């Protein structure tokens, strides 16, 4: 492998807040692990976990505690030692209930004990998701001393100051950052992991992220050799770039599912009757959706039909019998529901998103055949979010990716009303609630898998959403680049990336 060099990578938007705990956007999450390492790490296929800062972990019988052993000689990027105390402090911070959106993933921990190079997590109840949670960005280990030394009097102020110049133990460390324009990461000389040449990773000297929102420009820059890699390649361009001898288009498997969420509530915000509250109508719409055609049209053949509400890359995914494209069936169901003449329904779309627009335009056409007249209302993200949070919508296009290597996250968001009203669809199933609660403490993998199978079956039948397709992460790289991975959770892993001279 070649060592050294600067990789220039085109991102479509910049990160906002590089704090593992308090951030809330994929833009942060997907590069955070390059800066902050976690005790465990997701495997490249996204299905399991592997050792990280902790070289090993053991779960006590009965599942009420977990013991992790830290690697010897761990250091932060400034050279200071990474101790078990840092681990305890970091995890305590991450699980504090009002700290950020992610604290719930560590909610099962009751106390943490640090001694020597071991850390013991005592649990309130058995938690099958814990290893995955520890491999997630919010459980990243931060330097307690440096954090406390940061400017500011309050915890929040310190977090902000620290996030401006973060020091972690990941393969890279932030070197310069012009918000919204570029970010440079430098090699962390203290990184623990070794490369295939036996020397410490990473191979690269630095990574330079350039923020180029316009897809075309990003691609043009890549083609012109001004970038070594570019994310979010529109599917329409995949074939073209694949044909380019200098480029390598990678379609990394993802946990991304593309759906149309429906408002399941009996009444709409304005008090009118909501046709989508009738399960037959929702099923009819699913039947009226030609997934294959959609995949051709929107992803240019780069997607796969959904086989559950979660992606096939999600642990405990169990393929289900889905709604086949069947117009007759759709019409029949609609007639049965009293909509023989169809009805009009409005979908909230994100303005400026070409893919979403293409998708909805296609659906508009398909559903029209069944009498469902789709109106597309393009909104900016702020307005759209406010609208659906308030339950003031009929449909909205949505894509989801998992953040945690476990099905519990997506399930709690998609199917559990008490979290955020099942992604604000208003869908509620006591059956799923019960199964989910059980699964959250089920340490037996087989039983947990069966619970998840049932949950998925119930959800698919109720069809609170329109199931569309899964898509990979399209990344185009120069042929000189090797060893780059984007794992199904979306994390960009540059640790083992190298750049041929």
């Amino acid at each position, binding site marked *: 492998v070649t060592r050294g060099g600067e990789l220039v990578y085109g991102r479509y938007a*910049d990160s906002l807040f590089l704090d593992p705990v308090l951030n809330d956007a994929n833009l942060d999450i997907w590069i955070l692990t390059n800066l902050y390492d976690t005790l465990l790490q997701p495997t490249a296929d996204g299905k399991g976990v592997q050792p990280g800062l902790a070289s090993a972990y053991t779960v006590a019988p009965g599942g009420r505690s977990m013991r992790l052993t830290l690697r010897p000689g761990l250091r932060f990027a400034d050279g200071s030692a990474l101790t078990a105390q840092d681990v305890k402090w970091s995890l305590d911070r991450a699980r504090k209930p009002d700290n950020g959106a992610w604290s719930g993933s560590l909610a099962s921990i009751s106390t943490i004990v640090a001694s020597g190079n071991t850390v013991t997590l005592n649990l309130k109840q058995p938690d099958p998701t814990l290893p995955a949670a520890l491999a997630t960005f919010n459980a990243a280990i931060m330097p307690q001393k440096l954090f406390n030394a940061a400017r500011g009097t309050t915890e929040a102020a310190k977090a*902000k100051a620290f996030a401006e110049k973060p020091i972690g133990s990941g393969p890279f460390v932030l070197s310069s950052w012009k*918000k919204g324009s570029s970010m440079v990461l430098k090699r962390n000389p203290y990184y623990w992991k070794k490369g295939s040449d036996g020397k410490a990773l990473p191979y690269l000297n630095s990574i330079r992220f350039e923020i180029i929102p316009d897809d075309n*420009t990003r691609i043009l820059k890549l083609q012109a050799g001004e970038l070594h890699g570019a994310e979010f390649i529109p599917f329409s361009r995949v074939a073209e770039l694949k044909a380019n001898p200098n480029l390598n288009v990678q379609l990394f498997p993802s946990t991304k599912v593309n759906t149309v969420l429906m408002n399941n509530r009996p009444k709409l915000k304005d008090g009118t009757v909501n046709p989508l509250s009738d399960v037959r109508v929702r099923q009819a719409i699913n039947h009226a959706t030609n997934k294959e055609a959609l995949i051709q049209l929107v992803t240019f053949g780069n997607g796969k039909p959904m086989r559950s509400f979660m992606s096939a890359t999600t642990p405990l995914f169990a393929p289900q019998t889905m709604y086949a494209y069947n117009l007759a069936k759709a019409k029949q169901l609609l007639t049965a529901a009293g909509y023989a003449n169809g009805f009009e329904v409005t979908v909230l779309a994100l303005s400026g998103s070409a893919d979403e627009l293409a998708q909805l335009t296609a659906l508009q056409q398909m559903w029209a055949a069944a009498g469902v007249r789709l109106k597309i209302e393009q*909104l*900016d993200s702020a307005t759209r*979010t406010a*609208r659906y949070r308030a339950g003031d919508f009929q449909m909205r296009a949505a894509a989801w990716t998992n953040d945690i290597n476990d099905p519990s996250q997506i399930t709690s968001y998609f199917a559990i009303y008490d979290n955020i009203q099942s992604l604000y669809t208003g869908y509620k199933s006591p059956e799923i609630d019960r199964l989910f609660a059980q699964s959250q403490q089920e340490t037996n993998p087989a039983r947990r898998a069966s619970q998840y199978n049932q949950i998925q079956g119930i959800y698919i039948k109720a069809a609170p959403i329109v199931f569309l397709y899964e898509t990979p992460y399209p990344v185009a790289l120069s042929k000189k680049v090797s060893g780059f991975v984007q794992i199904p959770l979306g994390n960009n892993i540059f640790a083992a990336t190298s750049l041929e001279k």
Partner: protein
Amino acid sequence: MRATYVLKRLLQIIPTFIAVLILVFLLVRLLPGDPASAILGDRATPEIVERTRRELGLDKPLPVQFGIFVQHLLRGDLGESSSLKVPVLRLIVERLPITLFLSVYAAIIAVLLAVPLAVLAAVRRNTWVDSLIRGVFQVALSLPVFYVALQLLTLLGAKLGWFPIGGYGETFRDHLYHLFLPALTLGFNLAAILVRTLRNSILEVLTAEYVEFARSKGLQSRVVMLRHVLRNALISTVTLLGLNIGALIGGAVITESVFAIPGVGRLMIDAIFGRDYPVIQGLTLVFAVLVSLVFLMTDLIHARLDPRVQHA
């Protein structure tokens, strides 16, 4: 005379500025969808949204918010971007020069293109040269900026590799090189407007009695053209150019996103979409001041070119 004139014009900006302040404040608050929602993603719970609103001071009544805003403003504090979590002033200081560079660059390209071509078109009026010049610029005027931008990028940038695709560069020469295509895109558009008016005013000036008089003095045609015709024809063009600088800055919004230039145009759009009130406010104020200053400069140049103005 000159100094008081400048002062007078500066004083005139103030009321406009105050009105802009109030208007922006209100406009921004009228945007539906609150910034908290914009900042937080899909997954935030209502409590988190509420907390963020509190942090941003959005729970206070409007007049209080305005008071705080003005107070901070007087201290030179434009607030902190709610999405980028950086002081707005710093963002503006970082990015404004880029947009200014681009705008001035574009204006220079526009003038360099427009003046000789307008002269040529006017002198050769109603010939094929005239038709060609007018035709090309008419087409330029009828195409969306982003289309022209993308075509230039594809052709001169990607295909021929003459210019870098987007970016800004480090040194002055880098800037010139990197920003050439975006400046050309904007400049061409502006040139189209300028050529049209300049050609017409040259034609008008050409029929003026004083040009005839100048010719009757036996001056060289170059002298007649430059000193007598162009100087007078440029007067109206300068005003037009000034009025269009605002449009130029507006045009930067799109050009900057196509060419991946981190200027204030792009910042503004991001801020509008992200409901980043402090940034929108700060930028609008800066735009207002900037455009007012450009108008002022236009007036001054106009006064320089046209002696009738100051004394009137």
